[in-house]
Structures are given as structure tokens and as C-alpha cells.
């Protein structure tokens, strides 16, 4: 009898794999995973998403870089994610080093460990990955045998709270200068130059690279920053983000890795554009990805077909900050609907504005009875929506809801933020009133026999967190008690509505938001707190079940850091922010003007209506060069 192969070539024993939840997270070997011959490779890169596998595998940015790096013949890029808490305990107990999925080799043996920073609440998981890999947590303690630890992604637009943990950061879009960085690394290695020399040369020679060890901060007595300057000649005082101007010529994975276990995004993702024309004042993505750059319809059609063929996925989803603003949306959707009908593929269309066009499309691609309609007014009153520059009026929402009800929908989801600058109790009551009005509209529009059951409204609120590079970066954030009070007020106001039985209200705990607020606008003083919290056992902070606010509070106290300094304080115009040495293309003076306009409740037209001269036109492309009527610049 010939028995099938059951030899274990994995980093973990059968016994361990059988004792943990979802062992498929740790075995690699997924469809489209890339395997190379180690002996023919000059540079090994471990790409890490510091959260659990199913979340990390769903991230588009990693798939793009994984594909791009593996197209280089001399580079092998592999993946690593945070082990879940069950395996975390076992790795520590058994002293097993963290490994990459493909080769199952220890991360410690790699040339680079790249960590993507998608949200602040993953910061303790970064330390977990370093720790389990047996890489010293602080850059200054690493020797020549350690991988170079590099960070990238949206949170690197304020890297300071985690700066001491990284050797360097890549600021901006990954497609542009990684090859130059790799070549420099290989060159310094061949010449026998050491780690410090590579880092110095990277800071000097490669645009978009930030090496925290080469900068020094001084502080005013009140704790604000007095200066932030490079300590070596030739190192730039200001670092401009990297950006891809022609997305049509940028690589895009035709065969992304497909997980065996169900990933959060179990579908192919078609990125249609980067950036957003809207300029909502609370939104960081709307600023740091400026200007808007679209992919051509031709390229997208080709990408869509290749992706479906290369993965066999049963669903395709569009990715962008605001799909409705894509110039060729109608043609693209028509094409996808034809293709998908033929191939039995489902289409999902997130981030579409609710209007006649989107309702028509959604009515054709999904079961209206099972789906719900989503609005994100973000604020309850028109006054406050003007403050945040959310160009969605009460009439837009009611008109959208009316059409949807007539089209057969009876479920509506609404997203709001609490704690926005200038918010009053009146604005909060506006949330309840708007929900009630939508519910009432349902009964107005539809006679009894046309209704498919009662209307269901779900209102969700999150707490507003001021983010760097937004007009609200100067704004104070609410305290935990204020947040809790506001959520209570919302709940109470909803209860007072006539249709309160039809309205469900969800809100988050405030603890997490406060912490996120500290990390978002924190400086280097925060790093010791993160380190201390990790040592105390904080991990997976974005997961309700593992979040330990008590330990965080202790960590702040023990490090003598006052979280209020970073959150509730209103900033002056002249204050130097920890992230001011980065240049995302949008000028600080533009953001200040927007902040002042916000306080006057003045709205700003979007990039297509009239250019506001934000500064991003210097990249010479995208929406900035589009012809439009009434351009201001």
C-alpha cells in the first residue's frame, strides 16, 4: 500500500497545529502563493500585516507589493501575520521563532521585515511580531544580523509614536522607490558597509524614506515641539510622500493569493482610483492620497477579467474612497454586469452614493429584500454637515430613501460621528430626528399593501478622532466622559421619536477611541507607553475581547505621560506637529484655511467643481490637470 505524504515540513509540529484554532493560518501554500529557490535569491523580504491572518489576507496594499516584489527575480517576498493569542502563547512557551508562511523560515533570517500600518490599534501587535521573531524591539538595539524593519501605510503619516521600533519608514505609495531601496541595500551589503551606513544612505539618497534615528526633537517647557531636525548632513529636513502618477502603468496583481480559510475579503478587489475629490474635513484619506488619479476603463476591464481568471473568486468588488466619483463608472458597471452575469460572479459596490443610478444597479445585482441601504451623513444637522464639509444634504438623503423604498428596500443603515468640532446637543438630536424622518417617509411613500414588512433603521455612531493632515488636526478631541454622555444623549433622543421602535442604535465604547486619539496625534514620548503596555500584556487592542484599558491606563501612569495632552488640547496655529516634517502634498496653510472655514460653517467645493489650490497640483497629474469650469488656480 502506498500511503500519501504526511511528512511535516512546517515550522509547527502536528501537535501544535492540531491544538490551535484555524491551523490553516500558519501553513502557507495557498493558491497563487509564490515559492522561489532560496539559493538564487539575493534579498528576502517578509511582508507583515500585524493582525490576524483573515484580516491581513484581505488587504489590497500587501497583495500589490507582494506581487510587485516577487516579479523581481532576485527578491523573494513572503508573508507573515500576527499569530492569534493561542499560538502566541505556545510560541513563547516552546521558544519557537516566528516564521514566514511560504518558506516557514524564521523572520530573523530575512533581509527586510516590512510592516504595514493600517490602523493605530495594531501598535502592540507590531511589538509582538518583533518579539516573537526575536528581533530587538528598539531599532537602536539591533545588530548586523537583524532584518531591516521598515514601516509603511497610512499610519506612517504620523510615525512618531512608533518611531523607535522602526529602522526606517517608507512614506507614500509603495510602487515607486522600493527597487531603489533594494538596490542600495544590495550595494552596501556587497561593499561590506554596515547597517548604519545603509540607513544613512537610504535617508540621503532615496526619496520618501524616513530614518527616525537620524532626527532629533527638542521640546518647549509646555511639552509642545520646539524643533525637529536631522542630525546628519544631507538628510532631508522635510520628506515628501511618494506617489504614482500614472496608475495605468503601475503593476497590479493578476493572481493575488487566495486564502483557504474564509478571509474577511473573500473576493477580488478592483482598485478603480486613488484619492478623493471631496475634502471632508475629518477624513485623512481624503487629504493624504491627493490628488485623485483614475485608472482607465480599458485597464480596469482587463484587470477585472484577469483577476477573475487568476483566482476563480466568485465575487468582485470595487475599491476606492468614493466610487460614484469615478468618471467612467457607468461604463465600468455595465461591463461588469455583463461579464459577471455570464460568469456567475457576484458584484459588490461599496462606497456608492445613493441616487437613481446606484439604486438601479444595486437592484439588478443584489436581492433588495435582503440588502440594506447605507448613508453616511456623519452629522445630524445641516449646520454640522457644513462644518465637516460633507456635501450630503437632508434632501439628498430623503430623496435617496424615497426612491429606495419605492424600489423595494426597507432597511436603512446610517453612520454618524459624535464629538465633531462645534457640535451642540441640537446637532445630536438631529441624528434622532433624521432617523425618525426616514422611518416616517417609508409609511408616507408606500401604501400598506406595497410595504414589505416594517421599515428598519440602524443608526451607528463612532467617536470623532482628529487625524494628522486634516483641517481638524488643530481641534480638541472629547474626553471619554463627554463621549459617553453624547452617546447617552443620542440614545435618549432616539427614544423620544415617534418611530423609535423602528430605529436601532449602535455605538462603540469610548476607551478605544481615546487611545486611538493619543496614537493618531502622538509624538515620540508615546513609544515608551506602547512598549510598557505590551510588556504588561496588551495585544490585539482592536479586538474588543482582548482590549485591556486598565493596563493601558497603568502604562500611561508609569511612564508619566498624560494622554489628555494629546487629545483634549486645542492646538495653536503656530504649533509644530510631530508629523510636520512630512509633506503629503497638501499645504499646512491650506489645512488651516479649511479649519477656519469649518469654524465659520463655510463649505468648500470639491476638486472637480473648483480647484482650491491645496498644493497637490505640484505632482502634476490626476484631477488637478483636468479641465473644469471656474477653476480658482
Amino acid at each position, binding site marked *: *500500500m502506498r*500511503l*500519501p*505524504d*504526511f*511528512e*511535516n*515540513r*512546517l515550522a509547527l*509540529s*502536528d*501537535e501544535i*497545529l*492540531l491544538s490551535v484554532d*484555524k*491551523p*490553516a493560518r500558519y*501553513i*502557507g*501554500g*495557498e*493558491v497563487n502563493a509564490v515559492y522561489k529557490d532560496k539559493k538564487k535569491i539575493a534579498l528576502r523580504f517578509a511582508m507583515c500585516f500585524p493582525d490576524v491572518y483573515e484580516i491581513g489576507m484581505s488587504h489590497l496594499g500587501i497583495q500589490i507589493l507582494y506581487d510587485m516584489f516577487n516579479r523581481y527575480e532576485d527578491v523573494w517576498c513572503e508573508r507573515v501575520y500576527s499569530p492569534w493569542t493561542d499560538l502566541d502563547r505556545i510560541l513563547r512557551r516552546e521558544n519557537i521563532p516566528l516564521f514566514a508562511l511560504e518558506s516557514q523560515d524564521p523572520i530573523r533570517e530575512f533581509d527586510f521585515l516590512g510592516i504595514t500600518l493600517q490602523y493605530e490599534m495594531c501598535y502592540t501587535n507590531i511589538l509582538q511580531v518583533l518579539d516573537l521573531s526575536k528581533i530587538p524591539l528598539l531599532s537602536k538595539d539591533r545588530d548586523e544580523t537583524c532584518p531591516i524593519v521598515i514601516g509603511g501605510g497610512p499610519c506612517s503619516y504620523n510615525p512618531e509614536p512608533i518611531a523607535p521600533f522602526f529602522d526606517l519608514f517608507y512614506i507614500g505609495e509603495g510602487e515607486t522607490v522600493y527597487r531603489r531601496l533594494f538596490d542600495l541595500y544590495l550595494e552596501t551589503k556587497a561593499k561590506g558597509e554596515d547597517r548604519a551606513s545603509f540607513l544613512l544612505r537610504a535617508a540621503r539618497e532615496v526619496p520618501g524614506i524616513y530614518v527616525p534615528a537620524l532626527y532629533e526633537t527638542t521640546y518647549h517647557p509646555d511639552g509642545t515641539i520646539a524643533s525637529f531636525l536631522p542630525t546628519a548632513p544631507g538628510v532631508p529636513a522635510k520628506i515628501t510622500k511618494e506617489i504614482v502618477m500614472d496608475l495605468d502603468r503601475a503593476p497590479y496583481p493578476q493572481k493575488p493569493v*487566495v486564502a*483557504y*480559510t*474564509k478571509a474577511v475579503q*473573500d473576493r477580488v478587489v478592483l482598485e478603480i482610483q486613488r484619492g478623493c475629490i471631496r475634502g471632508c474635513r475629518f477624513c485623512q484619506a481624503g487629504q493624504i492620497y491627493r490628488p485623485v488619479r483614475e485608472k482607465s476603463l480599458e485597464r480596469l476591464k482587463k484587470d477585472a477579467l484577469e483577476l*477573475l*481568471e*487568476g*483566482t*476563480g*473568486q*466568485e465575487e468582485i468588488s470595487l475599491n476606492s474612497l468614493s466610487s460614484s466619483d469615478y468618471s467612467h463608472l457607468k461604463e465600468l458597471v455595465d461591463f461588469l454586469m455583463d461579464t459577471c452575469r455570464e*460568469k*456567475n460572479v*457576484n458584484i459588490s459596490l461599496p462606497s456608492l452614493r445613493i441616487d437613481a443610478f446606484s439604486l438601479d444597479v444595486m437592484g439588478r*445585482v*443584489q*436581492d433588495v429584500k*435582503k440588502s440594506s441601504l447605507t448613508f453616511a451623513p456623519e452629522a445630524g444637522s445641516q449646520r454640522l454637515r457644513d462644518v465637516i464639509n460633507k456635501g450630503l444634504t437632508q434632501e439628498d438623503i430623503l430623496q435617496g430613501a424615497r426612491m429606495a423604498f419605492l424600489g423595494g428596500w426597507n432597511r436603512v443603515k446610517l453612520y454618524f460621528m459624535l464629538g465633531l468640532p462645534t457640535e451642540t446637543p441640537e446637532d445630536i438630536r438631529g441624528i434622532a430626528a433624521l432617523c425618525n424622518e426616514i422611518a416616517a417617509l417609508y409609511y408616507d411613500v408606500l401604501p400598506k399593501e406595497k410595504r414589505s414588512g416594517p421599515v428598519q433603521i440602524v443608526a451607528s455612531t463612532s467617536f470623532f478622532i482628529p487625524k494628522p493632515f486634516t483641517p481638524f488636526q488643530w481641534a480638541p478631541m472629547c474626553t471619554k466622559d463627554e463621549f459617553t454622555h453624547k452617546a447617552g444623549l443620542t440614545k435618549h433622543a432616539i427614544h423620544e421619536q415617534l418611530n423609535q421602535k423602528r430605529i436601532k442604535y449602535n455605538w462603540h465604547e469610548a476607551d478605544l477611541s481615546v487611545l486611538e486619539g493619543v496614537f493618531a496625534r502622538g509624538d515620540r514620548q508615546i513609544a515608551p507607553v506602547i512598549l510598557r503596555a505590551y510588556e504588561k500584556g496588551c495585544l490585539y487592542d482592536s479586538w474588543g475581547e482582548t482590549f485591556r484599558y486598565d493596563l493601558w491606563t497603568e502604562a500611561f501612569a508609569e511612564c508619566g505621560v498624560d494622554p489628555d495632552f494629546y487629545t483634549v488640547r486645542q492646538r495653536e496655529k503656530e504649533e509644530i506637529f510631530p508629523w510636520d516634517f512630512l509633506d503629503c502634498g497638501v499645504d499646512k496653510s491650506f489645512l488651516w484655511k479649511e479649519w477656519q472655514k469649518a469654524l465659520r460653517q463655510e463649505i468648500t467645493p470639491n476638486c472637480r467643481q473648483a480647484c482650491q489650490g491645496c498644493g497637490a497640483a505640484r505632482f502634476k497629474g490626476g484631477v488637478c490637470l483636468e479641465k473644469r469650469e471656474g477653476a480658482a488656480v
Partner: protein
Amino acid sequence: MKIRIKFSKYGSLRFIGHLDVMRFFQKAIRRAGIDVAYTTGFSPHQIMTFASPLGMGMCSLGEYMDIEVHSHQGAQDMKERLQAQCPFGIDILSVKALPEPEPNKKVVSAMASVSAASYAAVWKEKGRSFCDYSGQCADFLAQEEILVEKEEKKGTVFRNIRLGIYELKIEDDALLFTVDASSSGNIRPSWVVSRFLDFIHVAAPDSALQIIRLELYTHQGDGPERTLIPLDAIGEEF
């Protein structure tokens, strides 16, 4: 047309679950360009059923799934296309057409028709063998009661699995056995292995042994006429 596909599962894919295998095949079938049938309505799904889920960590030489296709270019072509989409750890062993159901009768799906399963258990440690114990198989089967504990709502209950063990023997290094795998009487292979180890006074953790499913069977006839036949024996070449 209904197709029955037999496949193996081994290597590191021992650690992917039953639903993962299903998701894998849904995508592999698409990539292979097989003209598979879908359910109608919003969010169509491939018409696909699997026989008897395999426990985590086990290998198999006898996994089955049934699909439905609109058109094809022969079994060999389908087998090759599908094989080309399989990673190390899954091989397509056979592709057969299921007979058209007689009027008023439904074809029994892969899932519902399973009556028995055969397994091999081997030591993972190289050179370790069951062969010294071959003399004890008959004595093991001569027992009237072979009890296993089962956790149920009421608490722990005991179940006698003796009658569900149809065959047990040692060949080469492996312990081979065939057991009831019907939905009402399903016997887990780990039960048989642990009772046999007890019987021969050998203590070992579960992970010391590799269990391999060898075949799934359906049956023909009843009573003394009853014979077990592999699930793909009722399929035809095409």
C-alpha cells in the same frame, strides 16, 4: 449531467478544514474553466455536495464531491484541467459520470449515500510498526463490547461501537479498519485507534499516529446480501 470526483488530501493540506476544501474547489473549478451548473437567483452558487467531512489533521485517498455540468470534453480532459489547478496536497483521482436517475427517483448525493469508510493508522515515527500486534486483531474483534465515551447534553454516555467495526487487520506497518460511516451510525476513526491501543497496552498521544482515510463506500443489497462498494464504483467513464 452529474459528475462524481474523487480526490486525495495530504501534506500540509491536512490542516485545512472541510469548508476550506469546498471553497478551494469552487474556485479551482472556475479557474479550470469547467462548465459547471449554478443555482439560480441572486448570488448564484455552484451545485456541489461533499461526502463525509474529514477530521482535521487526517490524510485521505478517498474524498468525494459531486458537481453538475452543462457540457464537457470527456472525463480525462476534466480531470487534467482540475488537476492543473490543484496545489501540492490535493490530487484528482477519478472523474466519473453518475447514472441518470430512474424516473421519479432522485440520485442520492455523495453525502447521503455513504455507508462505510476504511482507514489506515500508522506511526509517524519512522520505523515504528503495528506488525508485532497482528495476532491481536481477532481477539480485539472477539470482544462483545467496545465502549467509547461521548459527551452529550445529558452528560457523558457510553456507546458500544463493536458492531460498527466491520473489519480490522494489520498489514505491513499499518492498522487497517473499515467502519460504519452512515449519518446515523458514524464511527470516528480515532475511537477505534484509541480502543485498539488500549487493548494492546500501548500509550501514545493522538498526534503520534497519522490516520489516513482510504476509501468511502456505499452499499448494495441488504441483510446478508449487503456488499460495500466504493463511492465511485457507481459512476461511469465518459
